[in-house]
């Protein structure tokens, strides 16, 4: 819950205009099932002769209006998994398996016009670095109207009007004037808002935000997260937030997936995962970051070692070399995701609450 502190007159900021759905988009059917159903998604990259298995068979769902966080460090595969959804992988990457169902359509099989309709239409993406994601030689207005015109049959004037409206919605003051400016004339936070404006221009059902605030200062980050939360509520979008910051996840997500070495190792309602982490990696992460809500002198317990080589596939659990709870079974078999609570699953052979192997039926509570 955030409370906006009013700034003095003459400074930036305005209350967002009332949001209304895009002028003549197709009527979207109300979905009972999940908005996004990812099944067994795998992504590979070729680096010279080596194959990097960035994503190794992950599955998850996103319900309408839900916010899901995907958390991981570099090499975990979190970004690759998102780029794969819109088929935006770089030239040396490819989806090596799995499905991503949006309603009944498998996103991974789309090509040509349906794919272009999808991108920016029902699914939109916001990237980490607004400076490189925006075209430096086109005005901001042009970039937004391009998106609108691409997906809606409207006149140019109508698209411009919509662009002004969007800039307003994302909190950029003097929107009409700024339509004619170029990305480099905006600050980092403002550029990110522009990118968000482009992304929501056609009222997507699902918005994917890939580390949307990593490149921003913390006070600007607060602004952007606040904005995303508000937009999500008013547009009823589902949101996937990819980040390495568990604090961000705590604030904005309903559910969270923790990724390590290309796999999901823990997932569940955010509250449960953060309060009661069951996978040693999650536990390790939470114990190793300094936290403002714990006494200052609380010891940090770093996770020893380094993340594994993504070109190597081992038989056992990839977290093994760094795990304080390991048992023999971890070396031989890679654990599958299993329930430990309502909606809360982990991929681990050990029960970290007692430091012993988990019982046969998997449920330890």
């Amino acid at each position, binding site marked *: 819950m955030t409370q906006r502190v009013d700034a003095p007159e003459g400074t930036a900021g305005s209350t967002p205009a009332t949001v209304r759905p895009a002028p003549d988009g197709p009527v979207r059917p109300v979905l009972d099932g999940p908005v996004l159903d990812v099944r067994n998604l795998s992504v590979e990259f070729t680096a010279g002769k080596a194959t990097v298995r960035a994503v190794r068979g992950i599955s998850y769902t996103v319900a309408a209006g839900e916010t899901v966080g995907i958390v991981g460090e570099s090499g975990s595969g979190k970004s690759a998994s998102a780029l794969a959804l819109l088929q935006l992988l770089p030239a040396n990457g490819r989806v090596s398996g799995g499905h991503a169902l949006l309603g009944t359509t498998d996103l991974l099989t789309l090509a040509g016009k349906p794919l272009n309709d999808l991108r920016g239409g029902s699914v939109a993406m916001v990237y980490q670095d607004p400076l490189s994601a925006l075209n430096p030689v086109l005005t901001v207005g042009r970039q937004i109207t391009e998106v609108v015109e691409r997906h809606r049959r409207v006149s140019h004037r109508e698209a411009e009007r919509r662009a002004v409206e969007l800039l307003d919605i994302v909190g950029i003051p003097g929107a009409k004037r700024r339509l004619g400016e170029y990305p480099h004339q905006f600050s980092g*936070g403002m550029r990110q808002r522009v990118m968000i404006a482009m992304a929501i221009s056609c009222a997507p059902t699902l918005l994917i935000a890939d580390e949307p605030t990593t490149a921003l200062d913390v006070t600007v980050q607060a602004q952007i997260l606040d904005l995303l939360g508000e937009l999500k509520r008013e547009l009823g979008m589902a949101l996937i937030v990819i980040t390495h910051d568990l604090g961000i996840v705590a604030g904005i997500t309903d559910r969270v997936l923790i990724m390590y070495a290309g796999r999901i190792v823990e997932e569940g309602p955010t509250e449960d995962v953060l309060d009661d982490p069951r996978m040693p990696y999650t536990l390790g992460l939470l114990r190793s970051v300094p*936290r*403002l809500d714990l006494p200052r002198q609380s010891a940090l317990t*770093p996770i020893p070692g380094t993340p594994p080589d993504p070109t190597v596939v081992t038989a056992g659990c990839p977290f093994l070399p760094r795990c304080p709870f390991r048992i023999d079974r971890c070396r031989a078999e890679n654990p599958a995701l299993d329930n430990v609570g309502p909606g809360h699953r982990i991929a681990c052979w050990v029960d970290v609450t007692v430091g012993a192997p988990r019982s046969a039926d998997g449920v330890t509570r």
Partner: protein
Amino acid sequence: MTAPAAGPVVETQPADQEFLRVENLSVRYEGRAGVVRAVDDISFTVARGEAFALVGESGCGKSSTGRAIVQLERIAAGSVAMDGTRISTLHGKPLRDMRRRFQMVFQDPYTSLDPRLAAGAIIREPLEIHGIGDRTSRRRRSDELLRTVGLDETFDQRYPRQLSGGQRQRVGIARALALQPDLLVCDEPISALDVSIQAQIVTLLEELQAQLGLTIVFIAHDLAVVRHVSDRVAVMYLGKIVETAPVDALFGRPLHPYTQALISAAPIPNTRIERRRKRIILKGDVPSPINPPSGCRFRTRCPFAQQRCADEVPELRTASSGHVVACHFFEELEGRQAESHAVLPAAATSPARA
């Protein structure tokens, strides 16, 4: 509109403990559009053996300050004194000799090591520069340093491109320690590292500080890390220090509106707190350092700004022992703050069971 006055250094600790003294320091850059006042007349002192943090967002001048302290940046005005000696007026050989006593750890592990040298050679370089020891003793020392930073002798022959970010950073720290400095300036030493590695380096720095009795200036933007590592903290905004305080005082009783906004914006991995806390959302962006706002530089984003803030530059004034703030109205605001925002939630509210 009054010109900024070079105010007196506000004493925040007993004089005999003082190890580093920065006085009226200014650093300026000539840009295409004008002069950038990256650091504008700041002053602070650091006690012997203390961990002092400089915190702020991008463009606040903290990195420039760090470089100015270790004499790697030209000082436009002011002085830096270490252990009684004015190092900012030294040049040539006297300066190079003095450098043995203060060292810097750099932010980017990928550019701070010479790519053509192996780790051992990088660590031995300072010893060679100052002609310390002979080949055997230098090798012994570099092996010892490798162990000190948590690596082992086998890393001696490895080149930076074969090392991970965390390992490179350790090598950088080993290099900085080779000459047994008294003062270590760490410029965002963990920002470029993965989360799970950051804790390793932070813990290493803490251990080293305790073991070697180092005085540390820690430059960072991550408040949680700063709180964990430091004894005292100075918050910077657009080239000026807005608040300095012992760490518990800063986080328990932040007086400057900017400090409050910073703390309020820091994410905490605790859902209950995150969902309940009332964040201070600042409006707008950081103004240009070429043309900073008149008077108090923070006034364009400050929720409490008034006319006086535009007319007069606020001086750093003492709020309590060791706690200074540069705000005209901090006394009045303190009462208001308690009622409007729980800036930092008390640790007692359902801590994570981790």
